[in-house]
């Protein structure tokens, strides 16, 4: 019982981490795309809880709001519009097994290597306070993230937003392409 109480966060972390891995396996193995999307939704949710365990409450809330609330709705929307029932009989994504396995192994290796290098050698264990502190004052995760994002990382932040804007414009251009060509079809030849 004492062990349970003193190691509650760690135990919770391992349970949740296992569930997250199970959820992400479900995403690529479930044959019904809607079930896969639901599995992904569950994984997002568990990742949000993991953020909370690390005292990154702002990230957790944004994770739920943006990924679970926004992006997953659009996923489901698309899946339903392309008539999911017709897709359910198709094989899962895993058919070219060997190349996928090789790429996956390389990526997992890189992930573990970077986690070990960054976690142990580079920064050490910063602890949860680092995620809550602004100028040596504990204010909260929202303030800490906002402060870092708009001062230290302002330029990368703006660059990323421009990249996203370009991607959005690109999506609109692709979406409207057919209509544009139809409207201007006669003009090129004449």
């Amino acid at each position, binding site marked *: 019982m004492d062990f349970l109480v003193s190691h509650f966060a760690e135990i919770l972390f391992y349970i949740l981490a296992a569930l997250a891995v199970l959820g992400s396996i479900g995403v690529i193995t479930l044959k019904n795309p809607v079930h896969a999307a639901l599995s992904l939704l569950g994984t997002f949710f568990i990742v949000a809880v993991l953020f909370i365990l690390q005292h990154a409450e702002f990230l957790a809330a944004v994770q739920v709001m943006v990924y679970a609330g*926004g992006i*997953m709705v659009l996923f489901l*929307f698309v899946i339903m519009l392309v008539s999911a029932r017709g897709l359910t009989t198709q094989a899962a994504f895993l058919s070219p097994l060997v190349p996928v396995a090789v790429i996956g192994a390389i990526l997992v290796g890189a992930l573990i290597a970077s986690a070990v290098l960054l976690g142990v050698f580079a920064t050490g264990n910063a602890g949860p306070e680092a995620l809550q502190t602004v100028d040596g004052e504990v204010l909260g995760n929202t303030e800490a993230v906002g402060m870092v994002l708009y001062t230290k990382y302002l330029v990368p932040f703006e660059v990323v937003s421009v990249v996203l804007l370009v991607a959005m414009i690109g999506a609109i251009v692709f979406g409207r392409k057919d209509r544009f060509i139809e409207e201007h079809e006669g003009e090129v030849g004449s």
Partner: protein
Amino acid sequence: MPEPILQLLLIPLIKIVVLLVVVLLIVAYLTYAERKILAYMQVRLGPNRVGPKGWLQPVADGLKLFVKEDLVPGGAEKLVFMIAPAIVMVPALVMFAVVPFGEPFKVAGISVTPYLADINIAILFILGVSSLGVFGIILGGWSSNNKFSLMGGLRSAAQMVSYEIPMGFAVASAVLMAGTLSMVGIVEAQRTAQWWFMFPGILGFGIYWVCGVAETNRNPFDLPEAEAELVAGFHTEYSGMKFALFYLAEYANMMIVSAMAVVLFCGGWLPPFPNLLAGLWALPVLAWIPGAFWFLAKMSFFLFCYIWFRGTFPRYRFDQLMNVGWKWLFPLSLANVMLVALGVLLLKG
């Protein structure tokens, strides 16, 4: 009993039970109020058979839905069909955890807070959790294996995603004025400012309220269940308790949207017009009125507005709905956030 167990387990558990009972009771009598008010607006009597003046009508309705046969249509995606109502209901109830109904008070020496949690991301928590409810509607519509249900679910998804954005910006304008994301902090900021945020933030308040009505799929934005076109939209195939869960979740969401409006823009549990009538509210006759009374009174007003709208406005067409959302509310809410930010900067900085 050791203090930590009392503090960590017993009090929150009691609070959770009380909260659930109160919320579900209000929801039950909200359905009664809606039928009665609509009836009077249309010069009818409304429910008046079960109990005096129909007071026991919600009990009868609940009993009926409870014992009704639970149908699952052939060709339905069974698992998803079963969990969809729960996915709608759970977020609707979870959100009440951070709603501050009143000020902290003392009972027998123990300080009791009339809210479950005062977390420093309460606003984000509510926005995040509220965006999960839409999954139940989409999945319920999709799993029913019914064209009308699927249409209802898709409409609902499009509508909720569209109106979430201006709603988020409108909420952000109140957060800017308060300078905190905690619900309790926002009410306290209005006490300090001596103003409800409604008055300096009237534009944000208007946008919030319109989006709030749209987010709960109520008139004039009830396209996901437009009965003239879609039978009953996403819950056409649902019966018995599963239907009841959709129904209860809709009213619980109305309560949350109203409660958020009260907290963000109308001073939460503070008495009305704190700047003009402060002397009046300090009188001993009136000072004993608990904050929860003011909170519930303000919330009831917004709930009445919901019913009022339903009795008054015709339904939008879908393209009109999208126009209002994207071409009017979205740019307006963006401009509003910038204006409020500028105002806060000039006044405070």
